[in-house]
């Protein structure tokens, strides 16, 4: 769910751009450092960006009848870490605005804050916490991807509520309205995306084990972590 071009008042558009900027600049620094040390990362990071973009073309059957598409920031945060996702997510948002008319340029900052900053960090936090509590890889992936999606949607709803407070009940009332209206599509989508993540990592642990080990998602020696061997 992206805020459309022209929807936010100018002050809010500028404010959210300023809020997202430090995270995106931090991500850009991480990418520049990574590329200087390993020039071959340019292509891998580009591939990760293209994958995140293409994820929005995958349709998930939704419980409410309509079908929606995953946001993909959760899987990116688990595979490539949130700082890199802050930059890649912003690049993908720019491409979505320019190639799919999804989102916008003046709302890029607000969308980047919700989808490239809050979503990945919340998802990554949930993923790490679940794994530390013994939830295993698949449990962590489900929590991470579902929460990244939920956090993005909640942030977007709060951004809209801040911009358009309710005439009578103010910010709180507006937050309730926007959260309620978009929950119809976003809550089933978050659960669907979590399920998709579980199916995705089940395939990956069998067919792309070396890549997952290189990214640090799986431990090098599979015998140390028997729960991850579950299929």
């Amino acid at each position, binding site marked *: 769910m992206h805020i459309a071009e*022209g929807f936010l008042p100018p002050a809010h558009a500028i404010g959210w751009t300023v809020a997202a900027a430090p995270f995106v600049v931090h991500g850009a620094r991480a990418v520049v450092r990574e590329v200087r040390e390993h020039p071959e990362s340019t*292509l891998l990071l*580009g591939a990760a960006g293209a994958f995140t973009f293409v994820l929005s073309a995958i349709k*998930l*059957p939704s419980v409410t009848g309509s079908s929606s598409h995953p946001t993909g920031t959760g899987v990116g945060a688990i595979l490539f870490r949130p700082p890199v996702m802050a930059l890649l997510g912003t690049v993908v948002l720019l*491409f979505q605005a320019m190639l799919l008319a999804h989102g*916008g340029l003046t709302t890029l900052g607000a969308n980047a804050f919700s989808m490239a900053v809050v979503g990945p960090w919340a998802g990554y936090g949930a993923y790490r916490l679940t794994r530390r509590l013994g939830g295993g890889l698949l449990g962590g992936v489900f929590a991470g991807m579902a929460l990244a999606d939920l956090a993005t949607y909640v942030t977007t709803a709060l951004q809209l509520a801040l911009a358009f407070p309710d005439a009578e009940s103010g910010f709180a009332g507006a937050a309730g309205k*926007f959260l309620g209206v978009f929950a119809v599509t976003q809550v089933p989508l978050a659960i669907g995306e979590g399920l998709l993540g579980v199916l995705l990592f089940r395939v990956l642990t069998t067919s792309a084990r070396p890549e997952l080990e290189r990214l640090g998602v799986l431990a090098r020696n599979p015998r140390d972590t028997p729960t991850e061997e579950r299929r």
Partner: protein
Amino acid sequence: MTGLAIDDAAWASAWRVRSPADKLLLSLGLVVCALVLPAWPGSVLVGLTAVVLALGPARVPARTFGRAVRLPLAFILVSAVTAVVEVGGDGIGWAPDAAARAGSLIGHALAGSAAVLLLATTTPMSDLLPALQRLRVPAAVVEVASVTYRLLFVLLTSLTTIREAQAARMGYASVRGSYRSAGALTAAVLTRSWDRARRLQDGLAGRGMDVGLQVLPEARPSSRRFVAATVAGLAVLLAVGVAA
């Protein structure tokens, strides 16, 4: 044909040969006008200008432009209506001047979307990315974005082909099956993206790449008449919008 209608339109547009900087000035000028001017008559004028320029001199197919403007419409309508509904102690009702506020929100959003689309349907991303570098975005970041642009069409083609094969084998016949197919599809596209990146890297390393993917940008000189007309047009828009 790549499968993304807006990108196809950008490559085929009559304005493709114009300087990207000129088109950026025009579109961003219109975007700012759409944002700051009151909805009546500002948004209407900006929207009309963008549509007339895109369908007229830039010769963007009307179908493509119309479809692209419709895409964000669901979000715009739902959010605009939600914004003007009032929740208070005595239940739900319309806020005072609800129709005017909703109209103003929808007007601003549609005008802004049309202005961005004018740029999107006349300028391919590969022309815009070098402009980012001139805005002091680090070269490494622009390169990652360029690789993203080049790879995403390859991956979209893979995705379409795999999904067709899955659908032909009843992969999407039930909800359960749909999820299993979508999971396998995502995994296949992800591993293919890694494979593509590795093969590209091997090819480039074999050719001695060590200073990044440098290409000569096509020279597209800025047109003085275009810039003058843009500045004059934007000034008229601002004057009319503010005066009204």
